[in-house]
């Protein structure tokens, strides 16, 4: 469990207000070692510089989002007239979204991300349970195979993948134009299997043995004993899986039969090139596509940071 929870802050070495032995710098001593640059929370030129730089960073990374949200609520949105505050606030752009089919694309996106995430997490939990809690011949090879899936993103295998989606080998069914054309290819993802099995390895054997003595079967063992202990890891694979599937662009494009099958993110460029659709609607569509990401991000921020940093602190 140590790997996944090691991201929490390390405040060691903080001595508020100095410790008397080093009086040279008075009360500032304690803060000088909190950060690599030795930022001080006391008013002074250092703090002023930091506030200025933070303001610039906030503007560079957040202002574009404010600008498009404001554009989506602006009556006379024009690509040339984005500003931080809407000039004349209105909901017209969102009302126009219905006739343009934006909600249909959005529904496609939600179906795909819901089904894909459910499949991906189920596959990861099952595979991780076998890899982490059992010993069997060929275990290392299976792990390597799953890791290899991370080296084969949709882009690199796009062309043969589109052939496979159009005509599944052996069974000969075409998934083109169905949500399964996107859901099934994202099902096996090495990252979530790896995170899950690393986490399951840390669960003490005694818990499992005790349950086994009570005659608990294999499936109940996984669902009622192991899985409830894995909630932090489920958060990590959930948030990463969501971002990974929501980010899919090429895959929904090659799995579609006609533009009606597109996800919202793919359909945005379609809306943009449609002369009958105003730029206000494109901006509104972008904002709609942004909302699920924001919700997931704000709810599972801790899991996201844990997953990103799990490898950064070990040697």
């Amino acid at each position, binding site marked *: 469990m140590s790997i996944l929870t090691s991201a929490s802050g390390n405040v060691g070495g903080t001595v508020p207000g100095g410790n008397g032995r080093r009086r040279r710098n008075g009360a500032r001593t304690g803060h000088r070692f909190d950060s690599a640059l030795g930022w001080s929370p006391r008013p002074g030129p250092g703090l002023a510089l930091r506030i200025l730089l933070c303001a610039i960073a906030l503007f560079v990374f957040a202002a574009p989002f404010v600008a498009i949200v404001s554009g989506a609520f602006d009556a006379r949105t024009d*690509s040339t007239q984005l500003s931080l505050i809407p000039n004349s606030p209105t909901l017209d752009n969102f009302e126009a979204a219905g006739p343009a089919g934006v909600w249909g694309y959005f529904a496609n996106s939600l179906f795909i991300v819901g089904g894909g995430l459910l499949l991906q997490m189920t596959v990861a939990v099952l595979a991780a349970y076998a890899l982490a809690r059992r010993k069997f011949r060929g275990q290392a090879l299976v792990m390597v195979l799953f890791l290899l899936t991370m080296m084969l993103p949709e882009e*690199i295998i796009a062309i043969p993948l589109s052939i496979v989606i159009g005509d599944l080998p052996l069974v000969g069914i075409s998934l083109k134009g169905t949500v399964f054309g996107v859901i099934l290819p994202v099902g096996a993802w090495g990252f979530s299997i790896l995170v899950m099995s690393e986490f399951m390895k840390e669960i003490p054997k005694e818990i499992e043995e005790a349950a086994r003595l009570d005659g608990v079967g294999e499936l109940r063992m996984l669902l009622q004993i192991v899985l409830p202990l894995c909630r932090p890891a489920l958060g990590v694979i959930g948030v990463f899986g969501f971002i990974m599937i929501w980010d899919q662009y090429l895959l929904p494009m090659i799995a579609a039969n006609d533009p009606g099958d597109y996800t919202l993110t793919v359909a945005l460029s379609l809306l943009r090139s449609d002369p009958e659709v105003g730029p206000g609607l494109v901006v509104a569509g972008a904002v709609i596509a942004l909302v699920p990401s924001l919700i997931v991000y704000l709810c599972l921020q801790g899991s996201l940071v844990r997953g990103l940093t799990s490898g*950064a602190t070990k040697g």
Partner: protein
Amino acid sequence: MTVPARSRAAEGAGAPAGPPAAPAGGRARPAFLRGRSWLPWLFLAPGLLLATVFKFYPMVEGFRLSLFEVQPFLGNIWVGLDNYATVLTDPRFQSAIGHTVILAVGQTAGGLIVGFALALLLEGQARSLWFLRTAVFLPVVTALAVVGEIWRLLYFPTEGGFLNSLLGAVGVGPMPFLDSPDSALWSVMAVGIWVLGPYNMVIILAGLTGVDRNLYEAAAVDGASIGQRLLHITLPALRPALAIVLTLSAIRGLRIFTEVYVLTGGGPSGSTEVWMTRVFSLGFERNDIGVASAASVLLLIATMLLTLGVQYATRRKAAS
């Protein structure tokens, strides 16, 4: 079922059996596990099946197709390595490879610098810093296609465009950004850095929390400046974090597609065409499956070599 297999399975259930398990263990455990060596495979089956059908089979199929001239309905013709020769000698592919390398190197370096600067700036426990980090990280969780649409609008090439009106306020004339072959590639690169910077920031921040604060204190006692402290204490401690950042961004850079496709579609006049947009237009628009497959195989090989190379380089540095 063979004897060694059974003993291995018993070991899997916990060879160092604790005291409570010992009395009943003799009968209960083997009875439960006997004949169950197929059980792990049952749990692995969904993952292996999906990976085989949608990852490994397409990979092998891609290798195979790259050796043929693919003609739907007429039958494929074996051409050996001709497709690879076509890719490597095609001037459009050569310039696409050039653009990809420029983007990959520029985004990796820019993302590293921006990420490092952001991490140093936003390191700390204060609530306000947590809020700033949350806001700055937004580009990473946003779908790339949405990022592309946002930046198309921000880059609007007239005086009223968002970025141009900001530039106008400081007296810089309207810039064409994505509309001119001279600036399009750099504009795409800036968007990539905008996404990569905050991503790297989080990984580097985690590395920074692992730096021993006593070392900073010891350096201060020795009279080291902030710059020396950064160079000799912080940077060496960040090596694992930086290795991850470098590997991830270099791989991402090589297979860059969505941003370029949304922002410019490879234009204007091919100035932002990258490896994957070229593969896309060959494979899906011109139906030249064989050549496009060969290009994909080359990209896969390049990605793998890069990953192994970075791994090897960082291992060696860590050892020395």
